[in-house]
């Protein structure tokens, strides 16, 4: 008979947090004695609130649940000063409903199903009318990426994940033109996923799995995918290295992780270059104030190396008004102006004078894009690294 060792447990004293992840389905209490002893010891050390983090505990049977709940019940009963909060994830489905009855029995025990509060600033991108921008952006970047992706190792028949898939249009294009065997597309916005599923259903696409999840703590097993993409997303998270570590984890040894990011201050246009330049420098500052790094593009190589990737490849390309319909490019800029100047700068408390000047740069960029002799560009860095075999 085998003993289940497929769980990990650790205690962080600073956060008073005991984390259990993996699978916990023992046949007997004795099998998880080291875990319960560690949990008991940790509970004995703390004052105030003790956090039991099961966000990434994918499986838990009744033997393990009863063992944990008996211990917690005993401690909560003898130490009414102590609060125990179990932190669950909606991705698991079972965990909140499993622990809630315990909260009904113990006054100093609670269940917290964590959500997306992690990411300040992202609500602008998710709820600020961004779907048309995203569709247009993907359409224009695809002109370049369909050639870049094979150079970075994407091959037909591969098992691929698209993390932070947004509205899912990139996954659809990849599936249609580059033919991986399977795409798992993950995002933490239920609105975007609903849209993605509807688009897939409308087009009769059934080989893409759109799943809900937190990119910084995915409920996906290690070493699953040949090719993992994460586009225009590290730049909108306040802790991009957390996401990158997760991309590394789910990638198979020998597989590759592909990321794209921008450096918005390098957006350019002629004529009216100076005004355009000023506005995009201010865009970078604005995003930084919301703890997002829209200048991340050229830093991709460093980020990939720091996480442990090898054989780093970096491409950069300029999406321009010459890539297709110049009006499509202009529409993207107009959408940026609407969100950055119309919402984010306003909410930051910028003066009307600043906002007017800020808007002018976007309008000048549009002018350059639509000018018969004009040129307008938006630079993007595509980088990938191989997970050591």
């Amino acid at each position, binding site marked *: 008979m*085998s003993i289940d060792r497929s769980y990990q447990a650790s205690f962080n004293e600073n956060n008073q947090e005991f984390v259990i992840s993996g699978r916990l389905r023992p046949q007997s209490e004795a099998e998880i004695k080291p875990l319960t002893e560690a949990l008991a010891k940790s509970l004995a050390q703390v004052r105030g609130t003790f956090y039991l983090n099961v966000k990434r505990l994918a499986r838990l049977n009744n033997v393990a649940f*009863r063992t944990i709940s008996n211990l917690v019940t005993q401690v909560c009963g003898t130490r009414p000063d102590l609060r125990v909060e179990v932190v669950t994830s909606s*991705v698991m*489905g*079972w965990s909140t409903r499993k622990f809630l*009855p315990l909260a009904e029995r113990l006054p100093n025990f609670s269940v917290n199903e964590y959500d997306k509060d992690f990411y300040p600033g992202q609500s602008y991108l998710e709820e600020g009318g961004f779907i048309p921008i995203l569709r247009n952006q993907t359409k224009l970047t695809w002109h370049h990426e369909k050639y870049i992706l094979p150079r970075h190792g994407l091959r037909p028949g591969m098992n691929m994940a698209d993390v932070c898939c947004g509205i899912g249009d990139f996954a659809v294009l990849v599936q249609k033109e580059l033919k991986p065997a399977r795409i798992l597309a993950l995002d933490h916005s239920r609105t975007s996923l609903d849209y993605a599923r509807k688009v897939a259903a409308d087009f009769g696409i059934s080989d893409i799995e759109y799943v809900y999840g937190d990119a910084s703590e995915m409920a*996906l097993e290690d070493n699953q995918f040949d090719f993992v993409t994460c586009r225009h997303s590290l730049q909108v998270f306040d802790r991009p290295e957390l996401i990158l570590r997760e991309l590394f984890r789910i990638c198979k040894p020998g597989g590759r992780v592909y990321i794209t990011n921008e450096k918005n201050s390098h957006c350019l246009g002629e004529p009216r270059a100076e005004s355009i330049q000023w506005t995009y420098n201010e865009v970078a500052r604005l995003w930084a104030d919301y703890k997002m790094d829209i200048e991340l593009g050229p830093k991709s190589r460093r980020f990939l190396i720091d996480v442990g990737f090898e054989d780093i490849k970096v491409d950069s390309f300029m999406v321009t008004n010459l890539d297709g319909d110049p009006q499509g490019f202009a529409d993207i800029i107009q959408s940026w102006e609407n969100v950055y100047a119309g919402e984010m700068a306003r909410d930051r408390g910028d003066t009307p004078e600043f906002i007017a000047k800020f808007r002018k740069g976007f309008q000048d960029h549009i002018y350059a894009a639509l000018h018969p002799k004009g040129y307008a560009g938006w630079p993007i860095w595509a980088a990938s690294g191989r997970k050591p075999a």
Partner: protein
Amino acid sequence: MGIEAFASEWLHCDRISSYLARMVSHNRTDSLLYANLLSSALNELLETAFAHHGPEGDFCCRVSRAGNADVIELDFPCDAKTLSFYNEAAKRLQQADLTETYHSALFSGGKPDPHLGLLEVAVDYKAQISIQQEKGNRLKLAAELALEGATA
């Protein structure tokens, strides 16, 4: 597989439920969430069959889909003692205060209630559970699970 082979290794329950749930769930709205829920429910059924079954014969696990629901059927050998166990379970599953029965079993002291897994599947996963004696000293434990949309 033979019931003896199945019952020789506890990890079979976890491995079968995880693998099967992943395969079955791939075309559900959220495949990952669905697989997690299905694996949890299926594992409880498998653990019950692991602990309570007759001595010899085949152990069959069938999964089929009927619209929004997935139906799991476990078919295994059954002796008098096993039959008595499942008949008792069937009676308890008919009780009106099933949620209270489940929570009492979940938080009871001492040895775990042997019907706990079935009670959980019926209450937490709102499964329609049926237990049927079959020809040739066999028993079929079936659960109809409508997990799509069970959580946000």
